[in-house]
């Protein structure tokens, strides 16, 4: 008697495993090398960062991070010597380049803007998306198919095509360069994705659960909250990641519509280059820090993300 389970799938041969493994490793390398390069550059000194041939082994330095978080002014060596002992690691580093720290840079406020706008718009898109997906899934909505198509159609043109009208509208409405404006914009872009993804997930939850809860004395909203939502968490998490990644990385609209108080990190990071030579380590440091939140969020929700990607491929 064999103890194999009733799988009809033939186990992959050693050869095909080898080929698959090679492709995966190659792809992983292609994806990860630029990230590793950025990470390495962020710990180089500016001369090391532009050395040719490129330096693989180098003396790590925090100069990039110091430059990222500060603004500096050039001074004469006599003036710097007259200042007395350095007040910290960064102070010491910049003095070696004949500079003194003038104050904090705009990176932190821009980074906080990114956090507020990305998480704010993700929350709004997922909230609206969940409710509308539930409505489309459970109720007879007149013209439901046309409405769903309309929602999807907002994704069919390149968003930049509407950049000029949105720019003019935002100026008129006073939404230019405001966090609220950016949250509204990213929510509008993401809500179509959220509705479609979540409708798929909610369709899979049998409606008997809410019906049972409603017979047991709950209102529809309570039934939704207590029975549908807990079972839709996987779908909601997967949708949230997709929305967050879009809003976090979005560059074109952010560059166009924000310049000061509401500017996000993506349009800000390239501007670092211009300040006093091509400061690649500072740009790399900004990029490295910029990657952290999305990395943490994705690692925390990786199971749900995987389920979101393979969604619909496997039937129970």
């Amino acid at each position, binding site marked *: 008697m064999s103890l194999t389970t009733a799988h009809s799938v033939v186990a992959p041969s050693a050869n095909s495993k080898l080929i698959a493994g090679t492709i995966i490793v190659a792809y992983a390398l292609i994806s990860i090398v630029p990230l590793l390069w950025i990470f390495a550059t962020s710990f180089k000194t500016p001369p090391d960062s532009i050395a040719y041939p490129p330096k693989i082994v180098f003396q790590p330095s925090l100069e990039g991070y110091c430059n990222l978080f500060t603004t500096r002014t050039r001074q004469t060596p006599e003036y710097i010597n007259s200042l007395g002992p350095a007040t910290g690691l960064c102070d010491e580093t910049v003095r070696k380049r004949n500079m003194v720290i003038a104050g904090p840079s705009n990176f932190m406020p821009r980074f906080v803007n990114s956090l507020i706008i990305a998480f704010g718009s993700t929350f709004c898109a997922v909230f609206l998306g969940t409710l509308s997906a539930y409505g489309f899934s459970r109720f007879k909505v007149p013209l439901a198919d046309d409405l769903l198509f309309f929602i999807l159609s907002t994704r069919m043109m390149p968003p930049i095509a509407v950049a000029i009208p949105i720019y003019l509208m935002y100026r008129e409405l006073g939404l230019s360069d405001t966090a609220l404006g950016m949250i509204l914009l990213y929510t509008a872009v993401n809500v179509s994705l959220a509705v479609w993804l979540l409708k798929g997930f909610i369709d899979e939850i049998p409606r008997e659960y809410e019906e049972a809860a*409603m017979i047991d004395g709950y209102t529809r909203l309570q039934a939704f909250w207590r029975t549908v939502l807990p079972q839709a968490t996987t779908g909601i998490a997967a949708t949230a990641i997709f929305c967050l990644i879009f809003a976090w990385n979005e560059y074109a609209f952010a560059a166009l519509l924000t310049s000061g108080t509401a500017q996000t990190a993506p349009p800000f990071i390239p501007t670092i280059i211009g300040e006093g030579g091509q400061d690649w380590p500072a740009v790399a440091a900004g990029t490295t820090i910029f990657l952290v939140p999305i990395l943490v969020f994705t690692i925390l929700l990786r199971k749900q993300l995987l389920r979101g990607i393979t969604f619909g491929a496997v039937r129970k």
Partner: protein
Amino acid sequence: MAEIRVEHLRKAFGDFVAVQDSNFAVEDGEFFVMLGPSGCGKTTTLRMIAGLELPTGGKILLGGEDVTMRRARERDIAFVFQLFALYPHMNVRKNIGFPLLAQGMPSAEIRQRVEETAKLLRIDHLLNKSVSGLAGGDRQRVALGRAIVRRPKCFLMDEPLGTLDTEFRDLMVHELRELHNRIHATTVYVTHDQMEAMSMADKIAVMNHGVIEQFGTPREIYDRPATMFVADFIGSPPMNFLGFGGGLAKGSKEIVVQGAKVAVPEVREDIAPAAMALGIRPEHIRFDDASKLRGAIYGTEYLGTTQIVAVETADGIIKARVPAEIRLNTGDHVGLALSSARLSLFDKGSGRAVRTAIHDAAVEARHG
């Protein structure tokens, strides 16, 4: 507990009429089964009683109160779904206590009620388990627990045993009936399985194409089917039909089928000449060479205590249930003797049963 009364209930989905003009009453404490093939409207009827579906017309009364247009949560009923609808994110205890939580009952009281219920269903050892690890029968018991914990006016069950293995199903049929005998809850149970219906029901409604074909006790439905559909749907193998022509006169006690005279229960109404059918249950056929009604053995199914014998007659194959000891060979010619007192007569056109002495005897027995 309460009685359920359904009056002229109708449900249409666009052009499709799922339920038409249904009328029945389930008395307080009765176990009522709606039986019929899939798509006959039995589940739709149940969902209308529950308030999950609103009727197109008609009335639903629960304990004398008109609840036709009330929301499900305002009806004080419990529903057991075919797929149980146990919440996977809650353990057994929370699942059973869920309806009580809706009422805002204090948690100590919920705890006590849940434990009483679990003990009644013999699942108290499972209370802290997750529902996803439970076996089919235990899931069924948890679903029942969630229904009875609230002590509602009535229970509605939609094919609750449909997904269980045959072995479990027989066990649960027994358990369900036993539970009913203990708590006497008014129950409406929907199934397409006649075995479940016959073994559990106090009353059965047989439905087809949105119409209740017959409403009665299991015995009435089996012995005196009101239509050819019921006669054919109930019984395994189903009732045999042999066609005959000519009208029937009130008081006649004999008909002619395939040239053979067959004694039947006394006819109690006049029927104009039309295509008719004689209905015979398989167990009311004996082999008797003296009979003029003849056929050839076509095949046999041996069942241990009895055997089902298919006999080819001039009017198609009919099946007889005879003792297992009789030795028969395919192709043998046999005479068929029918138990006259148990035969049914039908009008083939309408499918309706002809009134005979059987029906009157039943009425007399009930009133006498």
